[in-house]
């Protein structure tokens, strides 16, 4: 199994670094251009949330292989304030007309699975997986 790659998110530039790493990894694993764009978008949203709400944290990207299936796993980890209502943040929101963010509901759409663990005051860990040749 491929080793994990980690990007520390401290400044906004690190969001770009995480995107770059994610795209390279996705290409390496064999995702097509469109899926590379999707995976990168998901990483971007997760990293931006760390930057905005937890200020520091990290993005871990890895190749996943289980039962003949290959995919990419992205884990966003921080020790920030935590998410108040996890179930709510995955629901589509009524946006103000000028909001153009994608947010966690979009991340959920872009990947095959999403798992959020969050403790108020302790931090947040969000793991998403996208499989090759699926969806």
């Amino acid at each position, binding site marked *: 199994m491929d080793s994990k790659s980690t990007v520390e998110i401290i400044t906004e530039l690190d969001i770009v670094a995480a995107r770059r790493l994610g795209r390279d990894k996705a290409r390496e694993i064999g995702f097509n251009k*469109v899926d590379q764009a999707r995976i990168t978008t998901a990483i971007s949203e997760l990293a931006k949330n760390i930057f905005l709400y937890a200020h520091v944290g990290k993005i871990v990207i890895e190749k996943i292989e289980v039962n003949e299936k290959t995919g990419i796993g992205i884990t966003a980890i921080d020790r920030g304030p935590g998410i108040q209502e996890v179930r709510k943040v995955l629901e589509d929101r009524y946006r103000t007309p000028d909001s153009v963010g994608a947010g966690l509901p*979009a991340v959920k759409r*872009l990947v095959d699975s999403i798992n959020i663990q969050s403790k108020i005051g302790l931090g947040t860990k969000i793991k998403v997986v996208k499989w090759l040749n699926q969806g």
Partner: protein
Amino acid sequence: MNKLKAQYKRILSDYIQSQNESNLYIGQNFIKQLIQKNLTPEDVIDIHKQAIEEIYNDLPESMLHAYDFLIEVMVHFGLMFKEHQSLLIKQEEIRIEMDVAAKIQNLLLETTIPNPKDLDIGMVSVPIRKLNGDYVHFMHNQNYFSVAVTDVVGKGVPAALCMSMVKYGLDTLEYARSNPSYVLEVLNNIIEKSVDDSMFVSLFYGRFDLENNIFTWSSAGHEPALYYNSTEQTFYDLETKGLLLGILQEVKYNQHDIKLNDNDFLILMTDGVTDFREMEEFDSRGYIKDLALSISHLTAQEMCEVIYEKLQELLNFNIEDDFTIVVIKK
């Protein structure tokens, strides 16, 4: 997917060769298939990119990069589109729920217009949205007929929920002979206790003594009723300084008596009948008086309907509030 790609490539190259309207027509129909297959905008652009790549094998690298850029930015576009679709579905669910709620409200607040001897009563009550924030409650026994016209400040679901409570408050007061001031005092305490501070109710309560022809009334911040005295040929406003219900505990209300004679009539209404945001200067009460007088030969129900129709015309069918009017003719 590969079949779709091949089809798309064929349609595209046909168009590039001949630029026919029919190619475009076929293309648009084809896109409908892609939508049905749930493809996202970035998928479609990718299909296009691949088709172009195959049609022109000498396409410059830079062109392909430009397509990749478009794919990247369209991911976002597609997400917004998906979210929009899911909100539409949610909206539809809410609409269905609202329909059910409106049906239940209609059952709960159903009013039958009573038919006491010597009085002719008519009513029109039309909600601006599905749920009505206005409510008319009648009670009637051998000696008394009473009527409450209420308006919750606010509209929609919160107003409707509050209204159910007002209805049960009125129901528990049970007796048509209760004093109007007493009714308002009791309701005020109920509402003040049980509804949040931003919710107020205006209410006009009238009780008619069928034997002595005395109409006793009291009002909690409600649109003044109109009383037409046919002997004097004059309209009076039935108005008091009573506070809206639900603001303070233990408010006292005054009540007043008038004697109704034959051909007198009363018009009870909510402010939806008189407040027109688009025509602030307009003397709506004056208009209603003139109109009512000119149609006072009609039945009470017909009078209500004519007033509603005329006001609707006047406002270009743009009435902006729950609209309730009750006419009582002696």
